[in-house]
């Protein structure tokens, strides 16, 4: 995408805006996004840099109301009931300078029966001292389906403090699937906190992937409360830490209603002087509910490793391949 090709939904056209937009598109690409996708008229788009709303593009059934705050943006993102959005909605958040603070206060309202996917890319490519706070409220209406995929790129300095927090309500028969990935570059300090409540027949699946090196700090809180009859929940946590990085994973699943089924699955690979902590918590308040968990913390699986060694990979190559696959 070039600035000259920008479409009517672009918020401003001043030179300063153009430079910021170009930088954000580069950052978007570094975070794994496809800038071309932001140009497509059938793709709903929201681009936020620091506290500036650089671009919004609505399509039928998807609406944005984004307003700048002193250090960020307040946004309401609405998907109308019963609409099926074919192409993923693209969200692009970031801070380009080496220092700064960005706070996103977001409300997602997914109407009953709607079906939509979001692709969110958060990029801080030059960060030396950047703070990013996401405080989201997500409501998935009855029978709706929301897939929310969030990819981060924090640059190579490890100077980012990122706190994605979300409170999610999944109504009866609704489906919420989310993936959070921070697997390239440095992490810095990451504090993920998702609290998910699931009603009758609802489904919540959360996958978290992170790869920490250097002095990175990874802290993940995942809480799923299966409150309705036959609600389903799954958490998959895949974290690798090397050098002196530290990961702390706290996963909690509650089975509070008949027929509720939950499972927590955590793998953390530890290399060098890194440390990993894992604390699963299972709470069951109904004798017809069931929650299970599995965790593997520490070195790579020996059998996987030897399978790769037998193909001629050396140990470092093999471990790297296993880790890259796990967090892919």
């Amino acid at each position, binding site marked *: 995408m070039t600035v000259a090709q920008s479409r009517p939904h672009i918020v401003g056209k001043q030179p300063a805006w153009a430079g910021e937009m170009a930088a954000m598109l580069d950052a978007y690409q570094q975070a794994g996004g496809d800038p071309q996708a932001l140009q497509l008229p059938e793709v709903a788009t929201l681009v936020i840099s620091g506290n500036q709303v650089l671009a919004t593009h609505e399509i039928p059934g998807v609406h944005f109301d984004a307003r700048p705050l002193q250090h960020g943006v307040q946004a309401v993102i609405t998907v109308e009931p019963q609409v099926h959005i074919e192409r993923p909605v693209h969200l692009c958040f970031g801070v380009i300078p080496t220092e700064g603070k960005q706070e996103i206060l977001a409300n997602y309202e997914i109407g009953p029966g709607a079906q939509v996917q979001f692709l969110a890319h958060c990029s801080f490519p030059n960060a030396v001292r950047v703070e990013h706070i996401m405080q989201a409220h997500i409501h998935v209406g009855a029978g709706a389906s929301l897939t929310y995929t969030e990819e981060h790129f924090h640059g190579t300095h490890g100077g980012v403090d990122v706190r994605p927090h979300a409170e999610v309500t999944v109504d009866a028969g609704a489906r919420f699937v989310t993936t959070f990935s921070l697997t390239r570059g440095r992490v810095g300090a990451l504090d993920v906190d998702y609290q998910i409540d699931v009603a009758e027949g609802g489904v919540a699946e959360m996958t978290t992937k992170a790869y920490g090196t250097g002095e990175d700090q990874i802290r993940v809180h995942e809480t799923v409360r299966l409150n309705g009859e036959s609600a389903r929940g799954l958490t998959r946590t*895949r974290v690798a830490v090397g050098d002196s990085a530290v990961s702390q994973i706290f996963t909690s699943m509650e089975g509070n209603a008949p027929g509720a089924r939950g499972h927590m699955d955590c793998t953390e690979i530890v290399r060098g002087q890194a440390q990993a902590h894992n604390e699963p918590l299972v709470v069951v308040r109904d004798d017809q509910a069931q929650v299970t968990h599995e965790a593997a913390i520490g070195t790579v699986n020996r*059998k*996987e490793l*030897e399978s790769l060694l*037998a193909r001629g990979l050396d140990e470092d190559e093999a471990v790297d391949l296993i880790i890259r696959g796990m967090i*892919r």
Partner: protein
Amino acid sequence: MADPILRVEDLWLRRNGHEILHGVNLEVFPGQVHALLGLNGSGKSSLAYTIMGCEGYAPDSGRILFDNHELAGLSMTERARLGITLAWQEPARFEGIPVGKYVSLGQPQPDRDQTVAALEAVALPAKIYGYRAADQTLSGGERKRVELAAVFAMRPRLAILDEPDSGIDVLSLVEIEKLIRRMAGEGSAVLLITHREELLATADAATLICAGQILFCGDAQEARQYYSTRCRSHLESLGAQPWDATNPEAQAALASNGSLRSPISGQTPEG
């Protein structure tokens, strides 16, 4: 006849206080399919892991020579780079590693056509399987075929196939037999571990192993006859674990049979 590519000499292995291999001798030649036949727990896989250099399988004594070079002290990676590889009986599963990538790992230079051909050789269409992860979403049989494809794509000088027939349906078994012959036809030596005598039809030579001892080494069909008429029936009569050192009755019965007790390498058994 050419020199053997693999020569195992008087190999002894002890693990966790148990004797696993008792003076094993074995020779495998280039282009040969050599079956290693024995019941569960007889030491077949342990011998494979020892040749491959897996952790915990360093022999207590004896030698393993590959192309006349002793393997002692070489890592698994070094052995693989010499041209030795192993297809596991129960292959590991890998999150996020596509089948195509896994199959290409052993190639000196990644070769897409060779990867595709290897997958098709095990009846896995590359268009369907190439980008699927080699993880738990594959069935046991599919994963085993991927493992064989990976070995084939590597074009190893010695392929150790640990029970490639287990968990495989009859139709797939035909494909696997063809692949084994094809590997040998292209010059690989194949050490084929199995406890199914049917697969012996694929082999040029066979070795019978029981309780870590070689009972017979020679012609594959003679081995099949020996295995089916005497060895298997005798061992099965002793119970599920006749090699269990803590089972005096089974050990006594095993020891009482002279033809089973003596390691015979390169000789046809009597009777």
